[in-house]
């Protein structure tokens, strides 16, 4: 025996030294001895349900068959995985499992990649003695809008139930009719409406759970696989994008333990049909009065170049870039700063955090730090709605014993696993932070939990209506906690990559501040002189457009009318601008107001790198050619620059990549080639150690005013909103909830408001009311960006009027 952490076991007559504490099935797999299994899965608790992994283990009373998925290895263990007894056991188990199985492999989606099919060939008896009639069930049974169930194919392995219950915390799939008719079922009228339902399809070892999107679309052996990264949110889960005949037909999670551990949200998994939607803009469009005319790229680019070229640099602004690759974002920043001569560029739309906090906070956490955290503080948006895969990671940490403190004005998805749930009235966060810091009153428990390090603090804005400075105060407090690390929470796809590429006023590529003379000099050496004016953020840009201080706007995959805290301002700004070009794939509430729409290549079509919320750079790879005449951003910007007589030098991806690696200090050496050929397949974390990062940002506890008024606003984000991608994504499009305003029953009673009644919020939106005693008193919860709440302005306080006439 080598040391205490290792044991020696004998498998099929050969001695192996393996790590102690692991399961026999895992130890055997690691040394190349694959034991067949259905119910066992690395990420799930062992249950030994299917009995497929039986092996012979020598014990005091001779050899015995034991399920290797629940048997931990021990020193001197003697195992036989191939004896006649084991073979006979495997044949027996498979013969039983196949008794009621329909054997409809030729028409089954799983056929060709099915563990049951494969293991029946490898370990089955070849022939069944069962000649009686098989059991039949109604099929397929939709267990949700996204997932179909075939109970005849099911081998009752319990994987889907464990995913739903243990991993996702949505125990909506269960075994019912235990006994002869045991089956997987949902409750009548209560579908498997989990944000993680697609994971059960991926984990199902037979064809019992299939996805609506993929049903009968392709055969596994015809699929083309590309490992890429999901751009649905800033976790940037690693995905396997599977195409057939030029279309994406399926997205599976890849077990990248540093990031998503194989899990995906249903939005990650099922949003891809939007790429193939016939509503996509696939040709340049040029405004002609009230409508758009189709144009050639030549015509469109000429218009854009001449209109932008006729403005002074400081009169042009760009909003967006958070859904693009790092290379595209870099090209956009370089285009604005060196060709247009404008520093007005912002990847966020007034809905995020201070760019320096997000990009360069000291002691930035990695996702893996959550696994080792003693205490986790979540003070930000509802992770289940905004960053679902991060929600899973926090849930996992609590299962492993971390203490969880959740602070929010309303109930969040994590409350059920939290040790301390702290609620506060929206708008009074700074007051609460002071009390939490002092451990006042009933916060003493939460405060003492935060004294147990290492602490990982997940910090963001709980809602669009919340002062972004509060997050900085929270971060400043969090940094005072023992062994504290901070994970800033932003939602939009590659927004962290965009910030790292300098798409923020005050930032240059590679986490460099414009205040750093050294940084400015380095960039100017490469690009020529930078604009000498101070850059404005998105909200100021929109205000200046309305005022007429600015005249042209470039929107890059951004939709300020839907996403910014003040949609009215955004609309007014776009309408007031002399010239607006939208580089987008869809007609959105914003791009519909543009003068020119240039069709953009999107996720699935673009190539390059992206950076997630922990600063991890991964390769994003194309599976498709850009639809129609769509083009990648870096190339079309290069063409606009040429039309304006400038050389942007971004026509070639490899060139941009090299330029980033040389001019963006924190990205030194991280090129596409490096990530493709030399880097860790999990991606590379941009150095966050303070010495290697040019900009080191320590948040300060800035004064944040406490909001007063009858109702303060919590503008709640939801996973399925009226966003343009979701609306165009087949099955997901119908999942947006209906909009209810929620308030505390006592507030409702005071105003004599009854559930279901329609009220007027802020004089602009008529919405039905639901009572919810998890909402803090004095807080009004309005769902953000649903069809019914479009155009709602995120003000700190809101007014409530009834519509039922005099009373």
């Amino acid at each position, binding site marked *: 025996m080598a040391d205490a952490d290792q044991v020696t076991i004998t498998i099929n007559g050969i001695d192996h030294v393996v790590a102690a504490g692991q399961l026999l099935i895992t130890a055997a797999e690691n040394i190349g001895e694959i034991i067949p299994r259905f119910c066992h899965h690395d990420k799930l608790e062992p249950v030994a349900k299917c009995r497929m992994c039986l092996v012979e283990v020598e014990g005091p009373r001779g050899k015995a068959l034991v399920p290797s998925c629940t048997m931990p290895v021990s020193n001197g263990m003697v195992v036989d995985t191939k004896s006649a007894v084991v073979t006979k056991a495997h044949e027996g188990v498979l013969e039983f499992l196949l008794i009621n199985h329909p054997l409809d492999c030729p028409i089954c989606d799983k056929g060709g990649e099915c563990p049951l099919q494969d293991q029946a060939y490898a370990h089955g008896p070849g022939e069944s003695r069962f000649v009686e009639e098989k059991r039949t069930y109604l099929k397929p049974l939709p267990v949700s809008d996204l997932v179909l169930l075939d109970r005849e194919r099911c081998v009752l392995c319990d994987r889907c139930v464990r995913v739903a219950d243990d991993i996702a915390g*949505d*125990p*909506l*799939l*269960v*075994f*019912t*009719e*235990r*006994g002869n008719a045991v089956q997987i*079922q*949902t*409750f*009548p*009228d*209560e579908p498997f409406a989990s944000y993680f339902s697609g994971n059960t399809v991926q984990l199902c070892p037979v064809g019992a759970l299939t996805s609506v999107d993929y049903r009968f679309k392709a055969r596994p052996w015809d699929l083309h696989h590309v490992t890429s990264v999901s751009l649905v949110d800033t976790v940037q889960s690693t995905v396997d994008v599977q195409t057939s005949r030029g279309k994406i037909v399926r997205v599976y999670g890849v077990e990248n333990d540093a990031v998503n551990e194989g899990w995906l949200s249903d939005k990650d998994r099922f949003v891809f049909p939007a790429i193939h939607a016939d509503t996509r803009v696939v040709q340049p469009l040029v405004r002609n009065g009230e409508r758009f005319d189709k144009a050639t790229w030549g015509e469109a680019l000429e218009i854009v170049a001449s209109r932008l070229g006729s403005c002074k640099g400081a009169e042009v602004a760009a909003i967006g870039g958070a859904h693009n690759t790092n290379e595209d974002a870099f090209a956009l920043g370089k285009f604005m700063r060196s060709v247009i001569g404008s520093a007005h560029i912002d990847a966020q739309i007034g809905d995020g955090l201070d760019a320096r906090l997000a990009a360069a906070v000291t002691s930035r956490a990695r996702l893996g730090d959550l696994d080792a955290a003693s205490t986790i503080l979540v003070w930000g948006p509802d992770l289940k709605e905004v960053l679902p895969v991060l929600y899973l990671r926090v849930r996992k940490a609590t299962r492993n014993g971390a203490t969880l403190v959740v602070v929010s004005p309303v109930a969040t998805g994590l409350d059920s696993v939290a040790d301390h749930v702290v609620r506060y009235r929206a708008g009074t966060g700074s007051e609460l932070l002071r009390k939490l810091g002092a451990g006042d009153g009933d916060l003493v428990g939460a405060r003492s939990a935060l004294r147990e390090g290492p602490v990982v603090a997940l910090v963001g804005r709980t809602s669009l209506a919340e002062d972004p400075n509060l997050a900085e105060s929270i971060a400043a407090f969090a940094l005072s906690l023992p062994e504290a690390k901070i994970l800033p929470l932003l939602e939009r796809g590659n927004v962290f990559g965009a910030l790292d590429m300098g798409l923020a006023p005050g930032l240059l590529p590679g986490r460099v501040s414009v205040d750093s003379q050294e940084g400015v000099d380095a960039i100017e050496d490469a690009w020529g002189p930078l604009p000498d004016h101070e850059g404005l953020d998105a909200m100021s840009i929109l205000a200046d457009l309305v005022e007429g201080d600015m005249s042209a706007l470039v929107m890059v995959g951004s939709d300020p009318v839907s996403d910014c805290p003040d949609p009215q301002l955004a609309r007014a700004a776009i309408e007031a601008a002399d010239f607006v070009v939208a580089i987008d794939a869809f007609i959105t509430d914003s791009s519909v107001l543009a003068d020119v729409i240039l069709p953009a290549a999107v996720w699935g079509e673009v190539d390059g790198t992206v950076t997630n919320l922990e600063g991890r750079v991964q390769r994003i790879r194309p599976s498709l050619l850009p639809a129609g005449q769509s083009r990648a951003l870096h190339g079309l910007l290069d063409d606009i620059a040429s039309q304006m007589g400038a050389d942007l030098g971004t026509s070639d991806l490899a060139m941009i990549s090299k330029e980033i690696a040389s001019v963006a200090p924190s990205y030194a050496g991280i090129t596409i080639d490096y990530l493709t050929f030399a880097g860790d397949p999990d991606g590379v974390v941009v150095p966050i150690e303070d010495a290697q990062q040019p900009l080191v940002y320590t948040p300060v506890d800035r004064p944040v005013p406490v909001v007063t008024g009858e109702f303060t606003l919590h503008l709640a984000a939801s996973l399925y909103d009226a966003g343009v991608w979701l609306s165009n994504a087949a099955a997901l499009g119908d999942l947006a909830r209906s909009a209810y305003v929620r308030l505390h*029953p006592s507030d409702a009673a005071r105003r004599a408001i009854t559930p279901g009644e329609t009220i007027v919020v802020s004089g602009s939106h008529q919405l039905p009311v639901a*009572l919810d*005693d998890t909402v803090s008193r004095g807080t009004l919860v309005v769902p953000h960006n649903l069809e019914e709440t479009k155009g709602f302005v995120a003000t700190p306080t809101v007014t409530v009027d009834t519509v039922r006439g005099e009373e």
Partner: protein
Amino acid sequence: MSSPISAWSHASQERVQTILDSYPEPRSAIMPLLYIASLEHDRVSPEAMRQVAELTGVTPAQVASVASFYTMFKRDGVGEYLVSVCTSISCFLRGADDVLEVVEDATGARRGETSSDGTFTVEHVECIGSCGGAPAVQVNYELIEGVSTDNGRKLVAWLKDTKPQVVLADEMQQLFGGSRSFDWGGPEPEGAIAPVPAFGPYGSSGEGR
């Protein structure tokens, strides 16, 4: 927020609280609560399962998972009197099939079914632990041992004619039973008032007649 069971009888609501208070984990109370819910709803209806789920902090699916395993949680409605005839080995050897046929004939309900007037539900059950007193029959889970075909017919007729509010094992044993498996001890004062077993605070126990 209003209680999920505000429509239940006051007595039931109190029993629910007693039961919930006696378990450290609310979900442990699922089974006893299902009995009370089935008294309120006359069966373990989806609505009943939803209410129990809310009381115990689990999902309705998890309650259904429990409820569907146990045959004594009746998800389909049953009649006023649930007549269960044991057909396991001892009772079978002592003529249980004949008793079952007689009961079906007299009630007008086939096994697994309810008579058209809603009075009887007939079922055959696996061993109910009275092998020594075979054949055994239960009415609303109150046990009668050594039931002959003749007495089976009389039992049904008696239930039909007298419509007892409370069925008592001792009383029925005296009227329609045969040899007992063992001496059951002194008389039991409480019987069942509904097709829900009469145990303690969970069930349907009513004072004897």
